[in-house]
């Protein structure tokens, strides 16, 4: 889009092409302008309630706003919304103001600004194209009042949860940062309840962000049940929930917000793709208000986060024990020789087969993790040859959810998968195997998460975790120590049931 700059009564402002206010104005792509001053609020102007509710705290392209350009322009002129160029020079680098990308751009001859080489951001194009000539519209979050609310949850917190819960509440009250380092199966969601109740009491906007849509869908009903009088929206690609001041969102969707949330909670802060994608971190920082609280949740903090903890830059609280109080199952190491060669020759390692038979004999289903999709498919066919009924689930699998569901319902007993299922899956009484645990993809945190799939239910807290390898790696040992140290810490605090079982030493 093209805009012309104008001055009236000492105020300079921009007028979009197509609104006939300026005669003989010269129109430029919006990126031509360097300064985007908000107009002072004119209190005699009555803004549209619908428009302000829609734009509240959001950062949107014109194509995403279902209001006419004239109306947007009026609200801009009277200080109720702001515009800025979507792509600007920041420290002399072209930067997408929506997602923070300063590297991946494309160009095209643009019909909107008539520029033969209009720059656009390729990083966040999934969410609509931000070009050099795209204005971003933004309206600061207005104050809100929640209906009176009481937490509707009568469960009991474990010792570990209780302590963390108090800290979360405090961080939210004081608008501070906090890392909740909670082992797999410790009940992280419940730890948030008291803090969220406090935030609602203080009328704070809330965002719980998670890398994956599955988690948004899992959290929504639990939180709606806990806070029945509050409207909570779920945001993910393809969702159509009406907006509310309390959202549960995938991290991707956050790029459509700016200075919006008083409380930002990031689930699985170390999980792909958040940790590896700087634009998502940019989005999280942009969506949170400058003085907002920031709570990270994870079972396996990355080095980067642990460094902040070590430097006393990030306060943290640890929950070293599961909600049921039994120790985390520690992995057993089993050497299987050159298993890749076996597979190439069309054979499965006999130790692995024997172990799987044993699990089946004990009526336990088995999740077997392997290093790659290709291997999973190869191994799948080998299992079929020996008549073991199994399914394979990987990241490019459209039937992922359905296959996991059938596994949970015990329709088949062996699930072959990659690291895609290392988090968030709970299957009762499942045994966990990893073939090729020495592979690079199985990092310490990955193995800790994988081991965290076992023994999650109170009924069967003693899970089996077997790592089949061709030479132990550092990451395998680190994962073992990680799990053991959590059990030791839990025991030292007197929080552990089933004493003395930290794990089987190899």
């Amino acid at each position, binding site marked *: 889009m093209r805009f012309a700059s104008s001055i009236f009564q000492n105020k300079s402002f921009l007028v979009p092409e197509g609104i006939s206010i300026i005669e003989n104005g010269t129109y430029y792509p919006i990126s031509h302008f360097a300064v985007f001053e908000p107009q002072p609020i004119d209190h005699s102007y009555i803004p549209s309630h619908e428009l302000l509710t829609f734009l509240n705290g959001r950062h949107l392209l014109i194509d995403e706003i279902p209001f006419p350009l004239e109306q947007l322009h009026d609200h801009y002129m009277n200080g109720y919304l702001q515009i800025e160029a979507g792509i600007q020079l920041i420290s002399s680098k072209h930067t997408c103001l929506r997602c923070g990308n300063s590297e991946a751009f*494309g*160009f*095209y*001859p*643009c*019909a*909107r600004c008539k520029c033969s080489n*209009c720059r*656009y951001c*390729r990083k966040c*194009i*999934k969410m609509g*194209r931000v*070009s050099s000539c795209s204005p971003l519209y933004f309206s600061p979050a207005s104050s809100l009042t929640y209906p009176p609310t009481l937490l509707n949850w009568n469960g009991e917190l474990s010792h570990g949860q209780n302590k963390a819960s108090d800290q979360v509440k405090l961080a939210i009250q004081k608008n501070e940062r906090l890392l909740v380092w909670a082992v797999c199966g410790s009940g992280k969601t419940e730890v948030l309840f008291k803090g969220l109740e406090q935030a609602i009491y203080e009328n704070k906007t809330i965002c719980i962000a998670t890398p994956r849509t599955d988690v948004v869908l899992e959290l929504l009903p639990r939180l709606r049940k806990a806070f029945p009088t509050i409207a909570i929206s779920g945001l993910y690609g393809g969702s159509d929930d009406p907006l509310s001041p309390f959202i549960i969102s995938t991290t991707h969707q956050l790029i459509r917000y700016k200075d919006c949330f008083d409380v930002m909670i990031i689930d699985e802060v170390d999980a792909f793709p958040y940790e*590896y994608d700087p634009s998502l971190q940019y989005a999280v920082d942009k969506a949170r208000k400058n003085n907002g609280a920031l709570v990270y949740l994870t079972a396996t903090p990355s080095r980067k986060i642990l460094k902040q903890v070590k430097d006393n830059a990030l306060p943290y609280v640890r929950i070293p024990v599961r909600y049921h109080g039994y120790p985390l199952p520690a992995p057993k190491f089993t050497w299987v020789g050159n298993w890749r060669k076996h597979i190439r020759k069309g054979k499965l390692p006999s130790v692995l087969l024997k172990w799987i038979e044993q699990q089946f004999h004990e009526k336990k289903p088995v999740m077997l993790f392997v290093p790659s999709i290709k291997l999973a498919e190869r191994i799948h066919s080998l299992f079929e040859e020996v008549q073991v009924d199994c399914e394979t689930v990987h990241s490019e699998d459209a039937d992922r959810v359905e296959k996991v569901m059938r596994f949970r319902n015990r329709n088949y007993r062996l699930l072959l998968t990659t690291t895609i299922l290392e988090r968030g899956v709970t299957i009762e009484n499942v045994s966990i195997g990893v073939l090729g645990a020495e592979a690079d993809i199985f990092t310490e945190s990955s193995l800790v998460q994988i081991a965290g799939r076992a023994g999650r239910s109170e009924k069967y807290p003693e899970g089996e975790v077997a790592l089949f390898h061709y030479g132990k790696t550092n990451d395998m040992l680190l994962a073992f120590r990680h799990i053991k140290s959590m059990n030791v810490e839990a025991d030292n605090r007197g929080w552990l049931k089933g004493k003395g079982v930290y794990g089987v030493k190899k």
Partner: protein
Amino acid sequence: MAQGKRCVWCEEVMNSVSWEMFSFFEEEWNVCNECKSKLAPISGEICLKCGRPLSKVKREYILEKTCLDCQRWVEKSFLNGLVHNRSLFEYNDFMKHVLTLYKYRGDAEVGRAFNSMFSKTITKSYKCIDFVIPIPLSIERLYDRGFNQCDLWLEKVPNRLSNCLVRIHHEEKQSKKTRQERINRSVKMFRVSNDDLIKGKTLLILDDLYTTGTTAYQAADALGKSGAKAVYSLTLCRS
């Protein structure tokens, strides 16, 4: 994170060294081999009229290497005909995906990967052509999308003629109509803005997809009525 060139289609890091780098024939595509392998170039015997692989047509529908659909087009004698259509690829699921990224998501670089292929095809196989005309979008749709997907493919083609053919109505998308509605339309889709430019000229029209042939025949008709000598058609895909 690993630095390296990424495939414009799948964003995976590409192997930096490949034999293609030493080939004179393969210009840089910015597409990884994995993605390239999912394309289905049209080869073998084709319908001489519409360029569809004859292996996809039932034998009883073929007459002198021409498919039944094309025989029917020829019967519609009120239209100025098309010399023929040729398409580069089959319209498989992967191609659908690529075109979605390009047209609807608006990622120009995704489609630009085909530029060199179009340039080469036009120089090599269409020596007799005076002008190449991209199938135009309506003004409204052009504004929505920001660019014309066919025009962009011809960026580097010197004899491109972009604003001569004009789309008349902004109506429902072709893809939302039934086959019969598409073939039997009576309303004109195109007009020519300047007859003098194309009078007596041999033209090539360029589109992304040939399905029923309606767009190509409508364009050829408009151009023919304005005095074009002959009209050929080239599309990225044949569905």
